[in-house]
């Protein structure tokens, strides 16, 4: 046995010593594992303290330790601490193992002797394992200074601007013809009620004109290759049929276009646009797109009105334009693709789509909007009558096992906002039917108070159904909202002219596929999984991919902006470093022994394994490999090894844990 191993057992005050005979374990290790190379076994009050660390460093220097095992708390807490200590003493940090006898022994067991015995086994496991540890060096990769931001909603806009203003280049890709996202559709923003467009437009313009931002609207990312520091994204720029070099966005083309189309996207079906259009007046960029499905020319080869009237030289209308694929290089990627609104037709008993005066929240946003289809008048489906009584239904599709379990967070405030606006603009009586009113952030509760004072009515109860079947005279010709007023325990049937469904937020319908493309995962509810729910909500498990806004979970505007900025800051930090160190926990293939069976190829979710047709062997790209070890376990020839978690290490640890290689009781002197 050539290794010289030091075992250090921590008291952690009484946290460990209270249940485990720490001294006994240390002595046992020194005596019974001597033949495995343990030359010293110590215990100390607090191993993590500077004195505790010095103890280790001293032994490494003086006794020439080649391996270190610390039995203390969870590696997630102090692994780094002890590894750095070893490094300071000149021992490769990966030759140090921290094994937990606190979280997994002293804190969960009560029987002292049993806990002590288990601790011995755990130490033995650590010792056996550490023998097979190898010195590892972190992998350094250079960071490309450009950043790719996907999604041009408020979160993406914020992120892009932060990075661009810091002097680095950003490529912002947006699926729709204009940036702005959902926020551009809103009228007022809670709780301050300042106009959404007024605060959003300047930011959009900045993005459009920023020297450091390349804006690609009407475009989608189709493929992502590479890894942190050097990603290559393939972006499809869908044919606009408008030449953006010559187009001035004067608007004559959509003025002259004879084809009216119901706008189901931006105006959610309440308004019209032309076949050549920009979604809204303040659109960025100003260039229109031709909606090929509806354009008369594309349908039957005649018309060309837009081209005829286009004043630019050369003419900006280009019917022959085709999609083009462009490659974008980036060191980091920020995903800010936002959310979809819950489809209210899924709840048949609420009658959306069947009962004409049932509206969704987004429809109301458009109606309230001065630039919207009704110039800001809130009216019934006939587009003229103002309602005299309105019921706002909360939690539509949220907090419901049948649809989405989670709380969408924004609906309460959104509903309160509608209550205020509708009372203000129509004088109608407004009822809110809620399960709980959730107003946790700055000035939100105050806004709730305000709506109460303004006469908003609140019924605590989830609406059971909405019907037009009247049971009494005062219900005739109205919508009837059936709900239990749970606070008084009585049935209520509330007649109303208009019902608003405060629909919740859902992950994008294609979130899963997009996530796969970028190598990040969705949680149970479909939102992208952050690296840590509390301490790292902007990074993902994949290095170099950040998330911002609703992709990570339902959020309101301030939160989306904050997260956009946070993601940007994280990216800037990486760019500043110029290069970054990757954990050396990687899989690698012994090419000489690889039979080229390709079983491992399909297993890697990060496409880190490539196959050399010429040599007929597979190879692992260390930078792409995330170190999960699945391929290692799968390789039938056993020629893939996983550093840090090699078969040898784990096999040895098993033997240790089973106390198979324990030396004899030393004869007492």
């Amino acid at each position, binding site marked *: 046995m050539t290794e010289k191993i030091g075992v250090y057992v921590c008291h952690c005050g009484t946290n460990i010593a209270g249940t485990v005979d720490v001294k006994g374990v240390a002595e046992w290790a020194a005596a019974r594992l001597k033949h495995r190379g343990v030359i010293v076994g110590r215990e100390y009050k607090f191993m993590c303290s500077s004195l505790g660390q010095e103890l280790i460093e001293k032994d490494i220097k003086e006794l020439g330790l080649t391996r270190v095992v610390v039995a203390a708390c969870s590696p997630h807490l102090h692994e780094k601490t002890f590894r750095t200590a070893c490094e300071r003493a000149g021992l490769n940090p990966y030759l140090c193992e921290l094994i937990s006898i606190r979280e997994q022994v002293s804190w969960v067991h009560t029987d002292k002797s049993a806990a002590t015995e288990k601790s011995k086994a755990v130490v033995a496991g650590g010792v056996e394992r550490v023998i097979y540890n190898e010195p590892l060096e972190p992998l350094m990769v250079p960071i490309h200074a450009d950043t790719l931001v996907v999604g041009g909603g408020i979160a993406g806009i914020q992120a892009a601007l932060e990075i661009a203003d810091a002097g680095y280049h950003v490529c912002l890709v947006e699926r729709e013809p204009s940036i702005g996202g959902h926020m551009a559709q809103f009228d007022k923003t809670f709780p301050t009620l300042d106009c959404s467009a007024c605060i959003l437009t300047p930011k959009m313009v900045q993005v459009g004109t920023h020297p450091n931002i390349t804006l690609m609207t009407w475009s989608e990312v189709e493929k992502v290759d590479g890894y942190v520091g050097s990603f290559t994204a393939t972006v499809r720029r869908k044919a606009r049929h408008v030449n953006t070099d010559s187009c001035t966005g004067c608007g004559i083309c959509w003025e002259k276009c004879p084809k009216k189309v119901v706008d189901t996207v931006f105006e959610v079906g309440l308004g019209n646009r032309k076949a050549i259009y920009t979604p809204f007046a303040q659109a960025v960029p100003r260039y229109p797109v031709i909606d090929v499905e509806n354009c008369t020319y594309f349908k039957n080869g005649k018309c060309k009105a837009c081209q005829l009237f286009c004043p630019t030289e050369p003419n900006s209308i280009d019917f022959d334009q085709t999609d083009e694929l462009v490659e974008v290089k980036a060191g980091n990627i920020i995903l800010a693709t936002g959310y979809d609104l819950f489809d209210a037709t899924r709840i048949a008993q609420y009658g959306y789509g069947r009962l004409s005066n049932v509206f969704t929240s987004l429809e109301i946003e458009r109606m309230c909007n001065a630039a919207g289809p009704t110039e800001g008048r809130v009216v019934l489906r006939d587009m003229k009558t103002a309602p005299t009584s309105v019921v706002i239904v909360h939690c539509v599709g949220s907090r*419901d096992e049948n649809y989405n379990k989670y709380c969408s967070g924004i609906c309460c405030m959104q509903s309160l906002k509608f209550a205020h606006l509708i009372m203000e603009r129509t004088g109608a009586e407004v009822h809110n039917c809620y*399960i709980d009113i959730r107003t946790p952030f700055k000035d939100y509760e105050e806004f709730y108070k305000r709506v109460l004072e303004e006469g908003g009515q609140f019924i605590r*109860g989830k609406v059971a159904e909405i019907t037009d079947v009247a049971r009494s005279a005062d219900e005739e010709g109205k919508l009837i909202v059936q*709900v*239990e007023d*749970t606070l008084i325990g009585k049935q209520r049937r509330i007649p109303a002219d208009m019902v608003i469904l405060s629909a919740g937020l859902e992950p994008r319908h294609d979130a899963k596929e997009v996530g796969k493309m970028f190598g990040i995962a969705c949680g149970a509810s479909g939102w992208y999984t952050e690296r840590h729910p509390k301490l790292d909500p902007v990074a993902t498990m994949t290095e170099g991919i950040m998330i911002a806004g609703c992709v990570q979970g339902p959020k309101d505007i301030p939160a989306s902006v904050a997260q956009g900025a946070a993601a940007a800051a994280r990216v800037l930090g990486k760019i500043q470093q110029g290069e970054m160190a990757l954990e050396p926990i990687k899989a690698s293939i012994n090419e000489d022994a690889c039979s080229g069976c390709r079983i491992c190829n399909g297993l890697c979710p990060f496409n880190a394994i490539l196959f050399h047709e010429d040599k007929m062997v597979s190879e692992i790209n260390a930078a792409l490999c995330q170190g999960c070890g699945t391929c290692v376990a799968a390789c039938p020839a056993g020629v893939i090894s996983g550093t840090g978690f090699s078969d040898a290490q784990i096999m040895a640890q098993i033997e240790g844990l089973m106390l198979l290689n324990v030396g004899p009781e030393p004869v007492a002197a």
Partner: protein
Amino acid sequence: MSSVPTFKDEITNLMYATHGKPISDCLQCGTCSGTCPAVEFMDHTPRLIIGMIGAGLKDEVLESNTFWSCASCYHCSVRCPAGIDIADMMYALKRYSMWKDRHQEGLIGPAFSQTFVKMIVGSGRSFEPALAPTYLFKYGPRGLVQEAQIATGLVLKGRMPLLPTKIKGLKGFQNIVRRIIPIGDPS
């Protein structure tokens, strides 16, 4: 850890077959009450009953007619945002109150169910006239007349048999029953 089961535990245990969500998941949102077609005839709304069970108000719950007024249409169950099978909970309450033989005075439900099962166990088939006694007299004279009219109407249309039918394998059938509930030995 041998603590006395709470009322809630008892009811939950009686909801054995529905592999559904426990009633403790209830948000008290009232969807069930708002949905229930019979709610106007209940002493307490279904939501309130769930709350009362949670609060351990056993007497009040057993005294209420709520679960005996449940038509078991399962509309609440399919709408419940917490995924609780409320209709099945109502059955559980019925079983509990039958088992403890505690229910509101003047209810027809308990007697009806009893007789129904007795009838089935006795013949293997249901026979409406045999059930009549369990409720007829609770209807009062006016109700009696109406009921009689309807019955005669049905008889005239040949839709109401005058003699009960029995299944052939009644003995074996009763042997099956005997393995579940005590119904005395074969005579």
